[in-house]
C-alpha cells in the first residue's frame, strides 16, 4: 500500500491511511486515502463544520433570501458570506448576514420565542425580501428548538413569506460535507415542486453545483443561453428561492460540483425522472465536450459547435502564451472539493504544469477516486491535512505555487511560496474559456511576481545582486525561452476585460428570444383557442 506518513504525524497513528503517493503501476484498487471520517482528536483539523457547509457553501448564494442563523453570533461570524458568490441583484446576499444571537439564558429557557421575534423583525427590516432560510447551529439543535414549528407559525401569521428550514447543526457530520448533504435533501423535501416555472424553451435544464464564484455560473449560462437553452435554476449561485423551487420541471440536470450537489441530482432522478449529466466547466478540451453533450441531448449540435469554434479561436492563443511559460512548474492543487478532479489532469494537459499534490479537507473517498485517477504518477494525495502536514508537504515537494483557500494560502506565503485563491478566486471567474485563460494569467503573475523573487532573498545572509536592476515578470519568465518561442505569431497575454461578467446581464440572446416567442404564442393559442 502506498501510504505516506508525515514525520509530524508519526505520533498520531490514526493518520496512517489518510495520505497516499500515486506510484508507478498504482491504481484505485491499491492507492486511495481514507476520507470523510470523523476528525481525529489532536490533529488540529482545519475543516469547516456541517452548518458552515450548509450555509456558507450552498444556502447563502441564493440571492433574494434573508439568511438567518439560529445560534450564537460566533457561528454567523464564521460564515460571513465572504466567498464572493456574486449575483445580479446588487449582491444582496453578500451584504447582509443575520443571527438570532442566542445567549446563555436562551440555552437555559429555550430560544424559540427569540427565533420567532427575530424572523418577524428581520422581514420588517427588509420588507422587499419575502424569502428566508433559517439555519440550525449546534447550540440550538442541542436545546431542541423546533424551528419547523416556528417557521410554520410565522408563515401563517405573515401570509406572504416563504421560509426554508435547514437542520444542519455543526456536529451533523464529520465535516462541512455533512451540511452539503443535509441542505440538498432538505431542499428537495421541503421546496422542490412547490412552485411552477414559466417554461420558455423546448430545452430546459438545471445547472447544478455552481455557486457563481465571481460569476462562474453566469459564464456557463451564457453558453447555454446562446444555444437557446432555458436554465430554470442554478443550484445555487445567482438563483432565487422560487427558481430553485421549480427544479422538478427541468429536462436535464447538468451537474458541475458532484461533491456538494450530487445528492439533489440523484433525488431528482429518482423522484422526477430527470437524468443527471456530470460535466467539466474548466479546461478547453473538457468544456468543448461538455457543451457538446448538453447540446446533443436537445439536438443542438450545430449551435454548440459554433460556440466552441468561436471561443477556441478567441482564447486559445492567449492560453498557449501562458502555457509556454508555465511549462514544468510544480503546483499543489489543494482546493475544497471538486477542483481536485476537475483540474487534476486538464491543467497539466493544457497549461503544462505538473500537479505534485492534491488534497481536500472534506472530500469523500469518491472525490479522491476521481482526483487520484486523474492526477499523474508521483502525486501526493492527502485527506484532511493539518497545517503542519501541509507545511511538511511544501518543504518536501518544493512547489512553485499552491492553489488553495485563504487560510492555508496565507501559511504558504510565510514560507515564500505564492498561492492562488481558488475558493473565492483572485481575478476570476475561472470557468469557461476566458476564465481558464484568466486562471493561467493569475498563475503566471503569481509564479513570476518580482516581489516573490525579492522576498526569497534572506537579507541576513544572502548576497544582494546590486549589479542588476528591477526585473519584470517577462524578463524572468522568458529567460529560458528561445526568441522564436517567446514570440510565436498570434500568441499573446490576456486581452479580456477586467469585468467579463456584468455585460452578460443585459445581453440579448436571439436563440432564447426565438424560443420565448414560440412558447408565448403557444400559450396565447391555448388561452384563445382557434375557431
Amino acid at each position, binding site marked *: 500500500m502506498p501510504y505516506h506518513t508525515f514525520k509530524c504525524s508519526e505520533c498520531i497513528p490514526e493518520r496512517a491511511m489518510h495520505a497516499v503517493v500515486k506510484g508507478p503501476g498504482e491504481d484505485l484498487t491499491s492507492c*486511495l486515502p481514507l476520507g470523510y471520517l470523523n476528525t481525529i482528536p489532536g490533529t488540529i483539523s482545519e475543516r469547516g463544520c456541517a452548518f458552515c457547509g450548509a450555509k456558507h457553501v450552498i444556502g447563502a448564494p441564493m440571492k433574494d433570501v434573508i439568511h438567518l442563523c439560529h445560534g450564537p453570533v460566533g457561528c454567523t461570524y464564521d460564515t460571513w458570506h465572504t466567498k464572493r458568490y456574486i449575483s445580479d441583484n446588487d449582491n444582496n446576499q453578500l451584504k447582509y448576514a443575520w443571527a438570532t444571537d442566542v445567549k446563555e439564558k436562551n440555552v437555559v429557557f429555550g430560544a424559540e420565542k427569540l427565533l420567532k421575534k427575530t424572523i418577524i423583525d428581520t422581514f420588517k427590516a427588509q420588507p422587499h425580501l419575502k424569502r428566508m432560510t433559517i439555519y440550525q447551529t449546534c447550540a440550538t439543535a442541542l436545546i431542541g428548538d423546533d424551528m419547523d414549528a416556528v417557521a410554520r407559525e410565522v408563515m401563517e401569521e405573515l401570509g406572504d413569506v416563504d421560509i426554508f428550514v435547514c437542520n444542519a447543526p455543526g456536529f451533523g457530520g464529520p465535516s462541512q460535507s455533512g451540511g452539503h448533504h443535509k441542505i440538498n435533501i432538505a431542499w428537495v423535501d421541503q421546496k422542490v415542486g412547490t412552485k411552477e416555472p414559466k417554461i420558455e424553451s423546448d430545452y430546459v435544464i438545471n445547472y447544478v453545483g455552481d455557486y457563481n464564484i465571481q460569476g462562474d455560473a453566469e459564464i456557463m449560462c451564457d453558453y447555454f443561453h446562446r444555444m437557446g437553452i432555458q436554465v430554470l435554476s442554478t443550484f445555487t449561485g445567482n438563483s432565487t428561492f422560487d427558481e430553485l423551487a421549480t427544479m422538478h420541471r427541468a429536462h436535464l440536470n447538468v451537474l458541475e460540483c458532484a461533491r456538494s450537489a450530487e*445528492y439533489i441530482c440523484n433525488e431528482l432522478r429518482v423522484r422526477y425522472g430527470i437524468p443527471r449529466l456530470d460535466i467539466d466547466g474548466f479546461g478547453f478540451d473538457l468544456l468543448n465536450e461538455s457543451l457538446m453533450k448538453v447540446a*446533443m441531448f436537445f439536438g443542438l449540435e450545430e449551435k454548440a459547435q459554433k460556440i466552441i469554434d468561436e471561443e477556441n479561436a478567441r482564447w486559445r492563443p492567449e492560453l498557449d502564451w501562458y502555457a509556454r511559460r508555465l511549462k514544468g512548474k510544480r503546483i499543489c492543487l489543494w482546493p475544497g472539493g471538486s477542483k481536485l478532479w476537475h483540474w487534476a489532469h486538464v491543467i497539466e494537459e493544457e497549461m503544462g504544469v505538473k500537479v505534485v499534490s492534491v488534497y481536500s479537507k472534506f472530500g*469523500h473517498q469518491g472525490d479522491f477516486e476521481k482526483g487520484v*485517477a486523474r492526477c499523474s504518477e508521483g502525486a501526493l494525495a492527502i485527506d484532511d491535512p493539518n497545517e503542519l502536514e501541509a507545511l511538511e508537504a511544501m518543504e518536501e515537494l518544493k512547489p512553485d505555487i499552491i492553489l488553495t483557500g485563504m487560510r492555508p494560502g496565507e501559511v504558504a506565503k510565510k514560507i515564500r511560496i505564492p498561492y492562488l485563491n481558488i475558493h473565492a478566486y483572485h481575478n476570476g471567474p475561472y470557468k469557461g474559456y476566458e476564465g481558464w485563460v484568466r486562471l493561467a494569467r493569475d498563475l503566471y503573475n503569481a509564479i513570476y511576481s518580482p516581489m516573490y523573487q525579492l522576498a526569497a532573498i534572506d537579507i541576513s545572509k544572502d548576497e544582494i545582486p546590486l549589479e542588476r536592476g528591477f526585473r519584470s515578470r517577462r524578463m524572468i519568465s522568458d529567460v529560458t525561452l528561445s526568441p522564436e518561442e517567446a514570440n510565436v505569431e498570434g500568441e499573446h497575454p490576456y486581452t479580456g476585460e477586467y469585468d467579463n461578467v456584468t455585460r452578460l446581464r443585459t445581453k440579448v440572446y436571439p436563440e432564447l428570444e426565438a424560443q420565448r416567442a414560440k412558447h408565448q404564442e403557444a400559450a396565447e393559442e391555448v388561452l384563445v383557442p382557434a375557431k
Partner: protein
Amino acid sequence: MDETMKEKIEILADYIMHRCLWQFHSRAWDRERQNAQILGVAKQLLLGEEPDLSTPELKCYWLDGFHLAKGFRQRFDWVNQMSKEELATLMDGLKERVDYLTIHGSLNKELTVAAY
C-alpha cells in the same frame, strides 16, 4: 484473452479514468448501472449498431457513450482497424476492468451506504 488485448483494455481504461466522470457516481448500484449503460452504448456504436434513445435517461447515457466511442476512434487508431468480434471482446473486457476498478476492487467504503 491475449496480452495485446489486455494492454489495449488497459489503455482504454486509463483514458476513461483520466477523462470521464460518469464511472464515479457515489454508490455501487449507480456505478453498475452507469458502467453497463454507457459502455454498452459505446460498444453498440463501435459495432455500428443503433442505441435505444427512447427515454431521456437512455439519451443521457448515449451522450457519454457517444463521446467515449468517438474519443476511442480519434485517439487510438488501432480501434478503427479492429474487426467486430475483436471490438466486442475489447469492450466486454473493458467493462469488466472498469467494474473492477470502480466497484469490485474499489477501496471506497461509501459505495455500499444504503442512502444517498
